[in-house]
């Protein structure tokens, strides 16, 4: 295993920025949630790579917690999307502006 740690961190940053661009560009709520999943996974890559680099299992434990939070976030987020769609018949974030001041 001779991959430089910087390569792993760079890959993590690239994946994270792809997810961030997805959150900002896409209007479909489900796709926005999927982009958030990409961002969470990018951070997981950094955690596992650093865990390997520092030879400490703590990073992998944190990945375990991140996965738990991601599962909870997906369950609640998708339930919100279902409730929104039942009321408004749309998933377009631009048409859901009722809370805007």
């Amino acid at each position, binding site marked *: *295993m*001779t*991959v*430089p*740690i*910087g*390569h*792993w961190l*760079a*890959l993590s*940053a*690239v*994946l*994270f*920025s*792809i*997810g*961030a*661009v*997805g959150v*900002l*560009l*896409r*209007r*479909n709520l*489900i*796709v926005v*949630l*999927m*982009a958030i*999943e*990409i961002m969470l*996974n990018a951070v*997981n*890559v950094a955690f*596992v*790579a650093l865990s*390997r*680099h520092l*030879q400490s*299992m*703590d990073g*992998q*434990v944190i990945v*375990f*917690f991140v*996965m*738990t*939070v991601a*599962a*909870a976030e*997906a*369950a609640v987020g*998708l*339930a*919100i*999307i*279902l*409730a929104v769609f039942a009321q408004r018949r749309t*998933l377009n974030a631009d048409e859901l502006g009722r809370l805007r001041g």
Partner: protein
Amino acid sequence: MTAFWILATLAVLSAIVTILHRSPVYGALALVQTLLLIAAMFALLDAHLVAFLQVIVYAGAIMVLFLFVIMLLGAEDEVRLEGRSALRLGALVSAVALAFELATVVVAKRVDGSALPASFGSTEALAERLFSRWALPFELTSLLLMVAVVGAVVLARRKA
């Protein structure tokens, strides 16, 4: 090193497909591919239990939930891809900022491969950490999951 480049290239490509494909179904399938590639990276980094969890929990459970909701709501294609111009500007600025961060972060320091304990990444070692040093966060996780379950049920039942 070769494995890293193959996995990294494929993961970045399928992540781009995920956020750019017009159909949410194909986006979700590309995301499944991304998650499986990341699981392979975890295995490459000797994090075997985490790699298994990635496949089972992420690519299995969470993505099935996503596909289920997409099918339930009808897979409507998006009419236009871009957001409002302010958001487009924000996306551009953040992409440039992250690219700059990338340029500074890539240092030629290698992952130290020497003297790795044989149990590194095993279920045993991870569980030992989880139930000693991280016991309190672990218990809080169960609370979080319970709140999420109750919240999801409440949100889903309100309209029905």
